[in-house]
């Protein structure tokens, strides 16, 4: 599941909204409750210690305790109407143990006293003991030093929950009005805001208190031509960010001007929706693409999703090993390819790295959900596959003795497991602007924004659409195209990468709702890149008659 699927699942695309019924979001609360302090950190330590001690006394060789308070607010509108305002809170404690070499997990909702957390720990031990009977290989947990009592706070300038709901509603209704005045027939807009207050304690001696914020302003405008019966849409060019409401407070330096304005660490929703309405109308009469090979110039607002699907997922070690075989799938990037040290993932220009540290990214935290300090590491170096994403019980398989710190659970009630870190394409080392890149393209398409996406279960063959497509002829933008999708194969695609703009153009895109696991858990992850050129990619025409 990805972000547009989530909108589909949530019924946003048709106006109904079922989000608050999803158990994962917890109970609905008054907006003021989102600003109330949670359980005091000293109390959390007592709750955690009770669980750690109980598990140890029952025979656990390792224990971690996650005390989580998850706050969410969604403001949802269409045209001149507020459709819904959702405020939810979910609080509870999850305890994970190793007993006799086997994992066990139990969780308790609304735990406020030590008896409750100790009981959860005992249940986790009982489950581990039951599972141990079927165990073939005991867990090998990479050692991890304890960090003592530490904390991390997302460097936000404005907590979104401090902004009155009226101000948010006014913003969205102004945005909708601008869309309708500029040619859109319909507009849906949403503000998603999340605050995760997470406390982690482990038998390694860590007590980690973290405060994480995320924000995603989003919309879709629709333009209709009743004469032809055709309609076209254009969605936001914002990115979901690990930021507060400050993402909507834009500085001129946050804007990337060009054929249309794109955004970096600040997003002008009103400006973008105004452009979007005009784009949707323009798409109605745009030229339908002629299928064939094109050089693609891909904006970071588009390329993030291709990176996510063709690099982020296949380099998750649990997929490589087969743990996701029945759902998300396995991976073409098998261990033998990594061991060969010469698997050519992409061209020499291609450097892809994983990290949980980029400021403003969705994945940024101080420590992951098993108490490992976050860091940055290479996945593809000068085109060659060099590493995977792995957590404490996996890193021994790739010969490392320290986890990469990319373990995550979407709730106190979910078991943490390996999740994608921010995976990004390093900016080009030689100075290069988007204009200079386009100037050299003879027959190409410039794609902005993410659209339709699909990739096979081993991450070879993919197809991507977009929001905006511009034909490039002899170094000039020749006009808007529609009905564009490109198909390629991961290795072939990254080997067709010939140029990457420099770091002045580096921006983040991302997914608020990346899905994995059974039962499925969601995770938020960013992907950075600068505008990048890929030569000779197969483009299909998606127009049909029914």
């Amino acid at each position, binding site marked *: 599941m990805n972000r547009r*699927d989530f909108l589909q699942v949530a*019924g946003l695309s*048709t*106006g*109904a*909204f*079922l989000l*608050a*019924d999803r*158990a994962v979001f917890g*109970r*609905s*609360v*008054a907006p003021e409750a989102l600003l109330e302090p949670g359980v005091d950190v000293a109390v959390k330590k007592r709750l955690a210690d009770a669980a750690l001690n109980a598990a140890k006394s029952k025979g656990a060789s390792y224990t971690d305790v996650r005390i989580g308070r998850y706050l969410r607010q969604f403001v949802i509108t269409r045209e001149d*109407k507020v*459709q*819904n*305002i959702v405020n939810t809170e979910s609080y509870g404690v999850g305890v994970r143990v190793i007993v006799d070499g086997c994992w066990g*997990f139990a969780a308790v*909702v609304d735990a406020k006293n030590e008896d409750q957390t100790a009981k959860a720990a005992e249940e986790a031990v009982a*489950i581990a003991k*039951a599972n141990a009977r*079927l165990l*073939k290989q005991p867990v090998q947990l990479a050692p991890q030093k304890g960090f003592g009592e530490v904390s991390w706070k997302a460097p936000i300038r404005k907590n979104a929950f401090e902004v009155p709901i009226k101000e948010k*509603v006014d913003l969205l209704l102004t945005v909708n009005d601008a869309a309708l005045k500029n040619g859109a*027939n*319909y507009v849906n807009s949403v503000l998603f805001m999340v605050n995760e207050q997470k406390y982690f304690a482990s038998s390694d001696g860590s007590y980690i208190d973290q405060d994480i914020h995320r924000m995603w302003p989003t919309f879709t405008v629709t333009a*209709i031509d*009743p004469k032809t*019966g055709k*309609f076209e849409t254009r969605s936001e060019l914002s990115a979901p960010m690990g930021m507060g409401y400050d993402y909507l407070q834009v500085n001129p330096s946050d804007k990337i001007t060009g054929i249309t304005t794109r955004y970096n660490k600040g997003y002008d929703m009103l400006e973008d929706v105004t452009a979007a309405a005009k784009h949707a109308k323009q798409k109605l009469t745009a030229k339908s693409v002629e299928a064939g090979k094109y050089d693609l110039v891909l904006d970071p607002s588009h390329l993030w999703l291709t990176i996510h699907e063709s690099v982020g997922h296949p380099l998750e070690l649990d997929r490589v090993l*087969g*743990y*996701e*075989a*029945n*759902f998300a*799938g*396995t991976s*073409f990037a098998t261990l033998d390819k990594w061991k060969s040290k010469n698997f050519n993932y992409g061209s020499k220009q291609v450097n892809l790295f994983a990290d949980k540290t980029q400021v403003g990214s969705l994945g940024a935290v101080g420590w992951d959900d098993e108490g490992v300090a976050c860091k940055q590491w290479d996945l593809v170096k000068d085109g060659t596959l060099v590493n995977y994403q792995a957590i404490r019980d996996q890193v021994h398989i790739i010969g490392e003795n320290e986890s990469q710190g990319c373990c995550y659970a979407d709730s106190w009630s979910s078991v943490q497991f390996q999740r994608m870190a921010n995976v990004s394409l390093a900016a080009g080392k030689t100075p290069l602007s988007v204009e200079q890149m386009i100037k050299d393209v003879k027959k190409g398409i410039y794609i902005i924004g993410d659209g*339709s*996406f*699909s990739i*096979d*279960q*081993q*991450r070879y*063959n993919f*197809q991507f*659409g977009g929001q905006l497509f511009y034909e490039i002829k002899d170094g000039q933008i020749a006009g808007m195209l529609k009905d564009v*999708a490109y*198909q390629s194969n991961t290795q072939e695609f990254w080997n067709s990468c010939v140029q990457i703009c420099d770091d002045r153009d580096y921006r983040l895109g991302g997914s608020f709702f990346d899905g994995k696991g*059974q*039962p499925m858990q969601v995770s938020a992850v960013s992907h950075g890149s600068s505008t990048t050129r890929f030569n000779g990619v*197969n483009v*299909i025409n*998606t*127009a*049909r008659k*029914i």
Partner: protein
Amino acid sequence: MAILTKDEAKKLLDKVLGYSKADEMSVTLNGNRTGNIRYARNNVSTSGETDNLSLAVTAVFGKKVGSATINEFDDQSLEKTVRRAEETARLAPENPEYVPMLGPQKYIETGAYAESTAKINPEFRAQAAFDSIDPCSKKNLTAAGYMEDRAGFSAIANNKGLFGYNPVTSVDFSVTTRTADGTGSGYASRDFNDVSKLSTKEATEVAMNKALASTNAKALEPGKYTVILEPTAASDLIGLMMNSLDARNAEEGRSFLSRKGGGTRLGEKFFDERITIYSDPANVEIPGSPFTGGGGGRFGGGGVDGRPQEKTLWVENGIIKNMSYSRYWAQKNNVKAVPPSGGFIMQGGNQSLLDLIKSTQKGILVTRFWYIRAVDPQTLLYTGLTRDGTFLIENGQIKYPVKNFRFNESPVIMLNNVEALGKPVRAGGVLIPPMKIRDFTFSSLSDAV
């Protein structure tokens, strides 16, 4: 604790409604016990069980709607929740599309609850996993699977006298088996309300046979092929179309059912005349919910919806017979507010999958599709890939496994290119026949196994 009887649920809901000071109030109570077991690499990886009982209150003043939820059930907590919903409603912006709540309704009993499923315990789940893993281990195949069972109920009530109660059980099982060298993969899935119909061993054997038969797949040129879609493959694509029958979208001009020049294509012949699709909550194979809005109806329209689900014809002999309506949109257009269906039944013939294969000179057998995503909502064009068992059929026989394809196809075009429909079976919560379709568009090849 999580599963209340009809009387217990009614008593609790009446008590909550008794606290109401709002113009209108509705309450939804959902209780579930959910268990699961997951395995991969022939080992159980996780298993668990959770109980959940939650109550949602919606209060309405005029056209202002507010909701609150709770999972504590003492009198004080219940009253506090009612007050919070009322307070939220008073502060809410007016919803111009609010439609007053329904009065008492008549609901059918659907028989979706099976005691056998409600009784599933951790030992049962472990045995189900063992029955799937063991035959794979013995044949040097690797199994990854997941079973999730659920027993619960949904109860709805409002202060205009509406009350509904629906107990449901369900079990979903899926398994992927792969050859040790990774060159073959097979899949099977089953879903039932009554777990006594489920054999994880039987389903796993189907997946094992596919894995063993799909090694060393050959590459065929992409292009237009006659395909035989197994019910699992067909249900995914047809299901996406069935989720796109909203009348408002069509009338607003942004649906595949929008008509050039305005209006909709209701009543037009859209598909091959053999296509008939209906929904029926009383169907014994796929019993549905007797009412809409077991929670979700609280939003958008405001308040528990509670419309009775009844047998509804969506497509008859290729003609679009109905679209679904919100109550607001139906009232505005002065038409019956036909609710969207939970599942659907697509009529077919009497032929088995094997019969369809036997009657095929050249075609591709598709076990399942993967990563299906919308490409163009205008034409309902979707893309996705075949997965876990794709075979060439020649002269009525399966010849050899072929490499997976990416497709770009619309279910609307597909249902105009029908060669034959087999006997409907349950797959993914719907009843759907295996189907033979000509000129199905495969646009590229994938190396994925």
